[in-house]
C-alpha cells in the first residue's frame, strides 16, 4: 500500500515536468554545433584489456566512414585455433602453383591496381581464389585476410572453390525467366545430377546462373563454355547437355 503511494508520488511529481525523452530521429537534441559525441574503447575492468577485438565491423558499417581500425598485438600469441583450421583447409585444397601469382603481384606493385583487380587477376590465373593465394596476397599487400575474404564473399564474381572445366551459364534475366528459364535449369539439374551453383564430381561441368546476358530476344538462353544456345526448350536442353556430356565422357552426379 505504502509502495503504491510512493510510486504514485513519483508519477505525479513528474507529470507537470517536461519529458526528457527525445523522439529521435524526428526531434533532435540541441547539441553544440560541432558536437560529435566521443568514441572510446571500453577497457574490461577485470582483465584491464580493451574489449575491442579489432573485428573491423564498426569500420565496415560506419555510415560516414570516420572509424579506422589500426591494430597490432603486444604479445607473441600462439596461432589461434581459427588459423590452424584455415591451414588445415589449405592442405585440403589441391596444391596450386604459386608462381602464377607473381605477375599479378608485380602488376599490383608497379601500377597500384586495386584489391579487386588483384583478386580478379588471381582468379583468371587459377579459375578460383585458392586459400593459399589469398594468404599470399594478404602477406604481400598488407591487406588483412578478413578484408580480402569480405570482398571475395561480397561479389558474385569471386569463387572460393575450384570450378568445372566447362561452366554452364543459364540466363535468368527477366525475359528469360518469363520465357521459362527455371524449367531449363531444372532440366539441367536433372541431367547433370547436381544443383544450381554446384560442380559435377568429375570436375567437368559447373551449373551456374547469370542475371542477364543481353540476348533477350533469343530467350531463354544459355552458354556452355564458349558455345551459346538460344530459344531453348527443356527438351532441347536435355539433348544439348546429353550430347555435351557424351562428348567429354562426363558422368551424372
Amino acid at each position, binding site marked *: 500500500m505504502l509502495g503504491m503511494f510512493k510510486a504514485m508520488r513519483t508519477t505525479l511529481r513528474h507529470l507537470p515536468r517536461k519529458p526528457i525523452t527525445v523522439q529521435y530521429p524526428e526531434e533532435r537534441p540541441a547539441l553544440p554545433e560541432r558536437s560529435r559525441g566521443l568514441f572510446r574503447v571500453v577497457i574490461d575492468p577485470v582483465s584491464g584489456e580493451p574489449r575491442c577485438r579489432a573485428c573491423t565491423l564498426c569500420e565496415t558499417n560506419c*555510415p*560516414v566512414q570516420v572509424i579506422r581500425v589500426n591494430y597490432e598485438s603486444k604479445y607473441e600469441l600462439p596461432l589461434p585455433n581459427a588459423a590452424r583450421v584455415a591451414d588445415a583447409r589449405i592442405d585440403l585444397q589441391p596444391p596450386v602453383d604459386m608462381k602464377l601469382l607473381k605477375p599479378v603481384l608485380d602488376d599490383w606493385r608497379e601500377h597500384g591496381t586495386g584489391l*579487386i583487380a588483384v583478386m580478379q587477376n588471381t582468379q583468371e590465373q587459377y579459375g578460383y581464389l585458392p586459400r593459399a593465394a589469398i594468404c599470399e596476397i594478404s602477406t604481400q599487400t598488407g591487406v588483412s585476410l578478413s578484408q580480402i575474404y569480405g*570482398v571475395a564473399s*561480397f561479389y558474385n564474381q569471386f569463387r572460393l572453390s575450384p570450378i568445372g572445366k566447362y561452366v554452364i551459364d543459364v540466363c535468368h534475366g527477366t*525475359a528469360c525467366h518469363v520465357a521459362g528459364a527455371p524449367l531449363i535449369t531444372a532440366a539441367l539439374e536433372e541431367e547433370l545430377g547436381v544443383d544450381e551453383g554446384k560442380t559435377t564430381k568429375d570436375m567437368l561441368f559447373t551449373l551456374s546462373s547469370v*542475371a542477364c546476358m543481353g540476348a533477350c*530476344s533469343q530467350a531463354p538462353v544459355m552458354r556452355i563454355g564458349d558455345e551459346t544456345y538460344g530459344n531453348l*526448350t527443356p527438351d532441347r536442353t536435355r539433348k544439348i547437355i546429353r550430347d555435351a556430356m557424351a562428348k567429354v565422357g562426363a558422368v551424372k552426379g
Partner: protein
Amino acid sequence: MSDEHTTPTHDDTPQPATAPASDAPSDDRGEAQTGAGADARGETQAGAGADARGETRNVKVEPAGDGRFKVSVCAGTACVFAGSMAVHDAFVEEVKAAGLEDKVDVSIIGCHGLCSQSPVVVCSDDSFYGGLKPTDVAAVVEQHLKGGAPVEKLLYKDPATGEAVRDWHEIGFYKQQTRIALRNVGVIDPESLEECLARGGYEAARTCLTEKTPEWIIQHVTDSGVRGRGGAGFPTGVKWEFAHKSPGAEKYIICNADEGDPGAFMDCSILEGDPHAVIEGLLIGSYAIGAHEGYVYVRAEYPLAVKRLTQAIADAEARGFLGDDCFGSGWRFHLHIKLGAGAFVCGEETALIASIEGKRGMPRTRPPYPAVSGLWGKPTNINNVETLANIAWIINNGAEAYAALGAERSRGTKAFSLAGKIVNGGLAEVPMGSTLRHIIFDVGGGIKDGREFKAVQLGGPSGGCLPASLLDTPIDYESLAATGAIVGSGGMVVVDDQTCMVDLARFFLQFTQRESCGKCVPCRLGTKRMLEVLDRIMAGDGREEDLDLLEELSHYIIDGTLCALGGTAPNPVLTTLKYFREEYEAHVREKRCPAGKCKALITYYIDPEACTGCTLCAKKCPTNVISGEKKQPHVIDVAGCIKCDTCRQVCKFDAVKIRSGIAQTAEV
C-alpha cells in the same frame, strides 16, 4: 509507395548535390512522348539536318571509305547468340570466292536494334536481311552483290502485309524512333576510329576543349534539360555545376556502366556499338568539371563491351584525343577502365565508389555527396553511359534542338530495350513523353503470337508492373513515378496472359534479396521475409492476412533503408498487388494460378479429343508417367508428374493442357 521513396533521388531533393544519376541499381528509363510530339520532332530534325522521315533517316550504313559497297553484319550480343559470326565468315568467304573483294566490304556493326530478327545484316543500299543463315549467304552474294537486286524472299517482311521491305528505314520499328544516344550504334564499325570520325565523332570535344569555357558547356547542358539516364533523373547540368564549383585541384569523373538490371542492355549496346560517344562525353565532362582522371566502371559480364572500350581508349590516346595534351589544347585527361565484380548494388554511386577503392560495395549515407567527397575523398562526378552518349550531340546540335524533344520536365530521348513477349524485341530510342502504348504497339509491333497484353514491367527490380489500363501513361520521370513504376535504366519487359504476376514479383524480389548488401536490416531481413510469404502463396499455403503483411513489410523496407536498392526493392510486389490483386487472391483463396505457372497450383492433363495418340509425349516424358496405346488418347498420371512442361511443348496438336488448381484425384 510515395514517390519520394520510390525515386529517392528526385530532382526536387533540396540537397545540394549530385545525388543521383545512377542512384541505384536501377537505371533510368524514360521516354516520353509528346503531346507536342510532332512539332518537337520536326524541329529536331531540322537541327540535325535530317529529312522528314525522322532522325533514323540520318542513321545509315555508309559505303566504305573507298566507295566499296558495304555489307554490315550485326555483332550485338543477341545476334552473336543467333550465330551472326558464322554469317559474317560465310560472307567473307563467298565474297572472296566470287572475286568481289574490290567491290564489296564485309564489316561488323554494333547492335542494330531489331534483335528479334537476329542475325541481322544491313547493306549500304539500306536493304535489311533478318534471320539469315550461313547457307543463305551464297544466294545473297550471287543475286544481290553480283546482280544488284536484293533477294526478296530473305528481306524483312512487313508482318501486316507480308511484303518485303526494301529500305529498313521504312520498317515500323525504325520509323518511329528518334536516335540521339544511339546515333552511331549499329552504323559504324565500333572497332574503327576512322568510321567514327567520318560521322563527326570528337568534333564536339575538340570544339569544347579548344574554344569554349567550362561555364559555357555547363550552361549548355543545363539548357538542354538532359537528366540522368541511369534511373534517378537528376539534371546532368546541375550535377556538373556542383562538381565544377566544388573546391579542390584533384577531381574525378566516373562513367557508371554497371548495368545490372536483368532485361536491360542499352548501356551494353552503346559501349559495344559506339564506345567513342561515351569517351567523348567523358572528355567534355572532365573539362567542364575540372577532372584530370576518369574511370569507366563496367560490368565484367560484358566482355565484348570491355574489349571494344579498351580498344577505343587506346585509339583515342594514339590520336592525341586523350592524354597529357588533348587536341593540343593543353588539357590533361586520362581514362581508366575498372571492372565490376558482379554486385548489382554497385550501380548505386557511393557503393560504386567503394568498389573502385577496392572495398565491399556498400552504400553510405549522403551527404556528403560525391560532388563534395567521392572517390578517395575527392570531388567526384558520376554519369550514366547513355547520359554521356547524349552530350556530344547536344554540343553539336544545340541545347534547343535537344530540349525541343520530350515533354514537361523530361526532355530529349530515351533508349529502351524491349524484351519479353513482344514482336519487335530490341533496342529503340524514342522521345521522352511517348506513351507506353506507342512504344509497345507502334514501335514494338504488339504482342507475340497474337496473344493478349497483360502487363509491362519497367525499371527492372526497382520498377513496377503496369496493366493495360495505364498504357496511355506518358513516359516521363514524374508520370511514371505516380503509377508506382520508374523510368529506370530503360528495360521494358512485356508479358502476356501466360505470365503469373505473383511469380514475376517473386522473381524480382529474389533478385534484390540476393543482391542486398546486408548493411540495412530492413532490406536484408525484410526482403527475405517477403520472399518467404510469396513462396508460401505460390505453394498454395497462402493465408488471408499475407497480402496485408506484404504491404506492411514493403513500407518498413522503403522507410528503413539507406540506398535506392532497398528503397525500391518492394516496388514489383507493391505494383502487382495494386494492379493485379485478384491474381494474388486467386492463389490465396482458391488455391489456383490463373496464368498456369505456379507448379504447386496447376495440373497437367491430356485432352482426349485433341490427342491423336502419336506417343511423342510419352517418349519425351522424363519421369515416364504418360501412358496410352498408339493412336489412342494418352493419360498423365498426376501423382508422378514433375510439371516440367516438356509434354506440352513437344505436343504438335495442343492436346496437353494445364488446369489451374490442385489435382484432387488422378484425372483423365
